[in-house]
């Protein structure tokens, strides 16, 4: 079937099959909580379905989905008063970090906590740059900021993330 002839329902199914998991993971990098991320991405899919008449193109739809996920993640964070005690005290002690799975989990938790501790723009730029592998131009479009701003958020964010994670490796 030609892509251009997808109905909104077909587009929804195909976009879901191809991108649902990755977009939820993107949102987890931004909001940390998986249930919240699922809600955010679910809303983004509903929004893209509603706008399909204007999008009509899988690439445009994907760009729109990304933007919706980032924006919605941001406003969810703003509205949810999540108590972030974890940020101050670092990752939960997981007992003796000897076996691989526990170690892996602790490392993942530390990275997610560090992401949460970053300023919002840096966090968004890092997630789009390094998780989704987007170009500076694509990130600039997604966040509606200049390419120069993308560059500076990326380099400051990367430095800050390293610093936060270094603190964890006592």
């Amino acid at each position: 079937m030609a892509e251009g002839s997808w109905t909104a329902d077909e587009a929804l199914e195909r976009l879901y099959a191809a991108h649902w998991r990755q977009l939820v993971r993107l949102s987890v990098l931004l909001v940390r909580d998986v249930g919240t991320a699922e809600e955010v991405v679910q809303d983004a899919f509903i929004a893209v379905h509603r706008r399909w008449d204007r999008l009509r193109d899988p690439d445009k739809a994907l760009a729109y989905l990304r933007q919706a996920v980032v924006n919605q993640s941001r406003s969810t964070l703003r509205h949810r008063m999540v108590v972030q005690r974890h940020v101050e005290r670092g990752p939960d002690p997981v007992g003796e970090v000897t076996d691989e799975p526990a170690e892996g989990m602790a490392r993942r938790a530390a990275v997610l906590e560090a992401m949460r501790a970053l300023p919002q723009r840096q966090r968004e730029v890092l997630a789009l740059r390094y998780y989704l592998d987007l170009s500076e131009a694509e990130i600039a479009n997604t966040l509606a900021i200049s390419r120069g701003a993308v560059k500076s958020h990326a380099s400051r964010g990367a430095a800050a993330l390293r610093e936060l994670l270094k603190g964890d490796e006592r």
Partner: protein
Amino acid sequence: MNEHDELRDLLTDAVADVEPEYRLDAIRARTSRRTFRRGWYAAGAAVLAAAAVVTAVNLAQDDGGRRENSPAANDLTHTAALYFVGDSPAGPRLYREFQKVSGGPIADLAAMTDANGPDDPDYTTVWPRGFFRNVKVEDDAIEVSLGTWVGPQVEATKAELDLYLQQIVYTVQAATGRDDLPVRFDGSVTQGFVLESNYVIVASVVRAPQLETLALMSVSDPVEGLAVHDSFIARGRASSFEGTVHWEIRRGQQVVLDGFTTAEGYVDHLYPWETEPIDVSKLNPGRYTFAALTDDPSGGAEGFGPFTDTRTIIVD
């Protein structure tokens, strides 16, 4: 490794174990005002499988020409939505349970058999190990190939058989993401049952409506036996009057904490619900039961009484 690769690996790994819940049904429910699906319901009826023209369709691979960035995209370990049979005020119904499963859709069906079975001791399954052999998504149906029934024969009424068949339909549709397709069997799906009639041949089954098949209250989180401290958020699906979901934490028979939340809807099928964080920091350590209940405005005077789903939690 340069800085770019290092950061990419770090962030990719940080979310590599996130396996989101299956939400296509929920999304579809909110995007369509659709009429009822083609209304043929063939469970238990004699339907001969017509020779189908098979066209290869692989929905999951079609990503509009874009590559999947995540290296974990081909890792087949996922959170599977499995359906099991449990009691309810309306008789046996299906309950959904999430389990980590590795493999394609056939692995989900295998996990639904007694080789693996439900984590929740309130649920059961009649399907024996090794009975499901293969799953193929075709143009007009999901085809499930069957092996030989190993183990004792199971006595079943027509209604029970229908429910067991829906267990397959709901599980394999969730596994393939195709709840629009009927399930067609290659092999005899009724071979292990002692039925009222010898002439029941089932070749193809469509999905029955949720409200007639599923327990109207289903807990997704917490999972059975979850250790919690400080607080946790409970989630699930329900169809309850005005969307009201009551929850309780019980120690033995005694209710030590309770509250309620609201699902997004209730009329036509099950809708997701989620609680605020439930503070358990003041409870003594030990085993508790988390229960979610549908609303029963009549106090049991009408209808079935509340549907309940429970999970054991360990407060530490």
